[in-house]
């Protein structure tokens, strides 16, 4: 799986890495049980600071997406159903709310939003790119 960052972007580099890894898992490029490269190898290959990669891994761990196992590195967690009311579900709801609120403020209609959601789901599930 290709990770591509834009160093001059407004989005912090660790955030770009986190987002791409999440998307890679959603698309099935990475599966549960797969391990991510070591922080040193990842940083060296990408040409970024080790702290940046480390920060991204910790963010992913905090979100319950990977597990950092001493000695064997970062492993992608197996996901079961996300229970209503769990901290992760609450966080997603909260983040969705912010985005939807902004969409409404900018004049997006409910149908448009639903259409958008369907398209994104379709893309993530079937488009391997």
């Amino acid at each position: 799986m290709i990770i591509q960052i834009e160093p001059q972007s407004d989005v912090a580099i660790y955030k770009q890495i986190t987002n791409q890894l999440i998307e890679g898992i959603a698309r099935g490029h990475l599966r549960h049980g797969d391990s991510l490269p070591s922080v040193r190898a990842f940083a060296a290959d990408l040409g970024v600071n080790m702290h940046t990669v480390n920060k991204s891994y910790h963010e992913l761990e905090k979100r319950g997406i990977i597990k950092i196992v001493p000695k064997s590195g970062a492993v992608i967690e197996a996901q079961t159903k996300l229970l209503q009311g769990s901290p992760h579900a609450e966080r997603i709801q909260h983040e969705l709310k912010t985005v939807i609120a902004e969409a409404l403020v900018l004049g997006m209609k409910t149908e448009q939003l639903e259409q958008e959601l369907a398209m994104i789901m379709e893309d993530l599930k079937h488009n391997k790119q």
Partner: protein
Amino acid sequence: MTVTIFLILYFFITLVEMAIPYLVKPTIVFGVSVPEKKMRDPRLLKFKRRYSLTVLATSLVLFIGLLVWGIQVNSTEETLILITTAAPFALLFVSLACYVYFHAKTTQLKREEKWGEGVKQLQITDLSVRSRDEMLPWYLFALPMLVTLGIIAYTIVHYQQLPNQIPTHWGPNGQPDAFTEKNPFSAISSPIMLFIMQVMFLVINETTKRSGIKLSATSTEASRVRQLTLRKYTSWFMFLTSILITMLFSFLQLMTVHENLLSEVMMLLIPFAFLLILLLGSIVFAVKVGKAGADNWVQSGDGVGDFDEDQYWKGGLFYFNKNDPSIFVEKRFGVGWTLNFANPIGYFITFGPILLILIVTYFT
């Protein structure tokens, strides 16, 4: 013999220096990164041609000068050695001066025509690239060390048999020409130096393995092939070198223990074969790496380009990047590796063994 070795080395250097601009990554011209669209710019091609021709012309002029001088003056052995050492250095110096000139010219061209400005710069990696890395495992590099330990043990067992004067240097005729007093340390000092070098090769192999596999955002496949080829053949070449020095040092040590083990002809031929194999090996290495992925560099990449790393390359030769945890990176001018000078561990790995060998020499 001195003259033959000189001639081989001299023409080897000429050939390598002339070939360098054509063996480096096509997107790096005289240490300056250029966009794929400009890598076949006629002016850049002219710079490369002029560089190679200047090196060739200098080499020939120097060589003819030496010939004429050699015929007129009845040179002694000492001046011969001096000249044969100085000439390759003079050639390297002229090549470097020439590089500096064309580095400046290329930098100027890039700045004036604003190459690579206004494109979105990207850095890229492939999470699966490491699974295709073919560098040799560390334990292969540990194998020759066993030979060294065996040689040390053998020397200790045959200590009584050793001559009172231990040879420490061998002349171009293959015969020892410098000696030191026999004592338990001087008897095994050369296998110890061998061991230091073997450790050095193992450590360099491991640190190279941990250094970054740098991919290009626009020519991902070409850069992947080149990086993986460079890593694989570096590892093989270092292993070959480690085996060869082990053989050479073991021969010399056995010769010290059993004085008439090999004939004079063999003593002359073994170091010569050693040199020849290494030179041939480095030519194969340079050509393999230079050709790897060379045809796959794409010329598109509109609106996007690789992150411009020129800021980290002082003079296009010295790499200083605090953020990069790599200890070694691919050279910009030449085939092989250079240090990330911002990483102090690199200094240890390169200068540590040299220092240790000097210490061993001092106490012998």
